[in-house]
């Protein structure tokens, strides 16, 4: 492994200061970053360990507002009866991380900001995996696990287990940086990079994800993942849905796909179609079709369009408590 520095700040201010230096990278649970360094896919000058930073972990439920510190482990969140009771879909999302080791070590912030699993990226071909002549290795190679909603040359998929649900809920990310605290929709944490210099998240140098906050009152949510194996495996597709209003009618529906695009993919048309509608097998099927209407699968991942349709239908069925 290439040599690197290691800093263990105690406060958010110290952490932000350390992260502002070029080549610094935040270390949370380390379940992914350490492999990236060992495999020489990523290089850092200094790791800034967040474990000892005060105020970054913990779960608060205040009225309908759920606040989760970024350094909270997935297992701590899964074990928090209040949070799970207020938002049962959290359990659906976390249980998809089918390894106790990853749930114990992995953090909420780490899940949200983990790097893509694209096998070209992981073999050192870069996040966009462009050949010397500019052609896409993903498009011309094996893309069975890649995006059905590619954005420009970004063809990897966002791998987060929690992001689709948080985006569907309209959750906010709390970010600390050199200029203090800022809040943004979780959705806005992500971008589809178009150059080798860009990342798949929008955090600026020195910025640090401190936590997320979501209003979990008065909505019904669900997450449905399609995984090939029941044991540890990445989902082939995931859908998170949030319905407001009670009874068969959805006042507002938000549908977000995971493992479908370089960012959590908001299926806006599908959500709009259902908003104000009664959920029936017909309206749900129409929403599922709308969710993939603008899909642009590549040579080897057409099947994922069908998986997306199914995941949306099943997530809606679970959220509405109906057989679909």
């Amino acid at each position, binding site marked *: 492994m290439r040599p690197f520095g290691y800093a263990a700040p105690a406060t958010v201010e110290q952490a932000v200061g350390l992260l502002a230096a070029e080549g610094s990278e935040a270390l949370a649970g380390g379940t992914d970053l350490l492999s990236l360094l060992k495999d020489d896919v990523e290089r850092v000058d200094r790791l800034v360990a967040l474990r000892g930073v005060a105020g970054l972990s913990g779960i608060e439920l205040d009225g309908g507002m759920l606040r989760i510190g970024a350094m909270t482990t997935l297992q701590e969140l899964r074990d928090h009866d209040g949070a799970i009771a207020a938002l049962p879909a959290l359990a659906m999302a976390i249980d998809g991380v089918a390894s106790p080791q990853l749930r114990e070590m992995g953090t909420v912030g780490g899940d949200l900001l983990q790097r893509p699993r694209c*096998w070209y990226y992981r073999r050192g071909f870069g996040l966009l995996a462009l050949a010397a002549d500019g052609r896409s290795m993903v498009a011309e190679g094996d893309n069975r696990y890649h995006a059905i909603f590619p954005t420009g040359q970004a063809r990897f998929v966002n791998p987060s287990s929690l992001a689709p649900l948080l985006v569907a809920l309209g959750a906010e990310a709390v970010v600390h940086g050199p200029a203090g605290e800022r809040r943004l929709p979780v959705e806005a944490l992500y971008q589809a990079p178009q150059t080798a210099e860009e990342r798949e998240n929008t955090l600026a140098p020195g910025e640090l994800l401190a936590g997320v906050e979501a209003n979990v009152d008065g909505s019904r949510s669900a997450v449905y993942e399609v995984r*090939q*194996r029941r*044991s540890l495996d990445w989902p082939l597709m995931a859908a998170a849905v949030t319905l407001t209003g009670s009874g068969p009618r959805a006042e507002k529906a938000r549908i977000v796909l995971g493992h479908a695009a370089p960012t959590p993919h908001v299926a806006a048309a599908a959500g709009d179609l259902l908003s104000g509608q009664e959920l029936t097998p017909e309206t749900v099927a129409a929403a599922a079709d709308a969710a993939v209407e603008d899909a642009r699968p590549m040579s080897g*991942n057409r099947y994922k369009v*069908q*998986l997306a349709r*199914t995941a949306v239908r099943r997530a809606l069925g679970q959220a509405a408590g109906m057989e679909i």
Partner: protein
Amino acid sequence: MADYSWPEADRRAQIGARPARLDGPVKSTGFAKYPSDQNPRGLLAAKILTCPHAHARIVRIDTSAAEAMAGVRVVHVIQGEGSEIQWAGDEVAAVAAVTEDVARDALRAIRVEYEVLPHFVTEEDRDQAPGAREAGERAEGDPDAAFATAHRTVQRTLGMPQMAHMCLEPHGQVCSWAGDELEVHASTQAVSTLAGQFATELGVPASQVRIRTEYMGGGFGSKFSPDRWGIVGAELARKANAPVKLFLERDQEVTVAGSRPSAFARIRAAADEQGKLVAWDSDSWGSGGLPGTGQTPLPYVFSRLPNRRTRHTSVPTNLAGSRAWRAPNHPQACFLTMAVLDDLADELGLDPIDFLERNLDLTGRPDTYREQLATAAEMASWKERWQPRGREREGAVQRGLGVSVHTWGGRGHSSNCDVTVHPDGAVEARIGSQDIGTGTRTIVAQVLAETFGLELHQVRVSLGDNVYPQSGPSGGSSTVGGVTASTRRAAQDALREVLVHVAPRLEAEPEQLVAEGGRVFVDGDSSRGMSWREAAAQIGGAPISVQGRNPGPGRLISSGVGGVQIAEVEVDIDTGVVHVERMIAVQDCGLIINRRLAESQVYGGLIMGVGYALYEEWIPDPVSGRLLNADMEFYKLAGLVDVGSLEVHMMTGPGYDERGVIGLGEPPVISPGAAISNAVANAIGVRVPYLPLTPDRVLDALAGRGGPA
């Protein structure tokens, strides 16, 4: 000539029993030291630099920066300037250093300039393959006439890709020199033959090469030779004058250290109105990397099928050469054959078990298969639960049942075993075999204990070292027959010598004496006897030592087994996800030495079988020529919750036991691909033509995009 045989059923204390493996406790507590656990004083770590291109020429190598690094002891160029590399992952240079991390850092400091050449890595489409070699056509009878008059014909194009052995302990070894003497702790399936191969390459006499493998973490057919990294490891140790540990990294293990050849075929098969097979025509191809691949034995099991024509084309690719994978060629041949027969049964409107039964005279062992099919069907409640493909379906999750049959040889290999009886009653066997996880140590102990009438803890087995008498490599299910036969012969001879000394004391002839239950006594009159310890004391001051060999006289072993497997699956037709609910395996292997270990072999075969049926495949990148899943993330192995309920029935007793010992490692891994594919076809009504049965392939088949006919 002495009579060598196994005891009659009513006199067996050990054979056929279910003792736990002797090395279970040390393995489960971590006390067992595998070759990769050996850390002699002064150990250096070695790593290998591999070529990232599937086809390239080395223009320049500069190792100076690596050589100058602190902690680096030796930099060794394996393939120098001008060498043509034929697959990504091929070895270019190696470094021995004080730690693994330093060795890896040094590899990154080696500068290699390549001239990248065109590559070919995807053999599914044979027409695109440069260098494809037709192996010729074989025909028997008149297939064209038979097809023309047949009642029903099916035609399918089917296939399965290359896949990896994925040994949990990667290939590698620890090499230590003392002067001109080399000691190698190797993760190998071939303790007795490795020394000669090391010696030839290293220019030392084989008598000065010691090979040791007390335990090893999986080989499956991929660990028979020292390999390039073995020789390089020994060279590094010689140059560094220090012990060197060189085990492959996981990506190397997947990429270069073992793969099973692919097999594709366009097959036609036909039957008459009675459901009898009458014609077969197959055009097969496949790749085992750069060397291509040999002909798959088609049609499988039903090899006496009249009117058949087979053609084969070997397709070389820019991938590392394949190695023997548990039951070489059989899983492929089995899938290609049984899938077509299953589709033909459907076309005929027949229950597939009925269809197979109608054609058993085309197999080598009709009676065995008939009994096994009946047993498996009973276990699966097949008659009550099997339904034809075209049935009404409701809901997304469909269930199906599928069946397959297989065969294997399994004759014991050449083996020598020294058995020693000490005057204090201690009994030991020394044998240059290896326990590759199958339980060889335990079954040798059982044969010793059985022969001398002792308990397992009273005998000692030493193996995994080439100072012991030569015993064959563990491959082809040949070990159990080889080692039990050589051990039994040696033990029977040694016991006879003991009995010669004991007989006068008991006023009997040696032939009248038996050793059972810790005593030696006159058969039929146990009061005329003495303890084993007293008996052994009669031999005088020196131990008795006898060598037994295989092959040899007596009816101890034979070959040829059959097996039937039934798979029950659930298929989610909206996602294409297949889950194996249940696997039933009915298997014979002659006389079983250890029921628990025999069943364990079958369980292992089923688990591995679920893996290649549903998950495992090499995914070579057409663009870069590299494997995209040389890891354990996207090279998917079956997890515990993925394998379903496994039920094993061993055929034993009269009709089986008298055949003697027959190997079992390969047979149970042959049928799962076919049985599971057939169960999926039964569940969803269409054939998914390719393994593994991944969601994309299942959904394609459901959408009528199953591939060419």
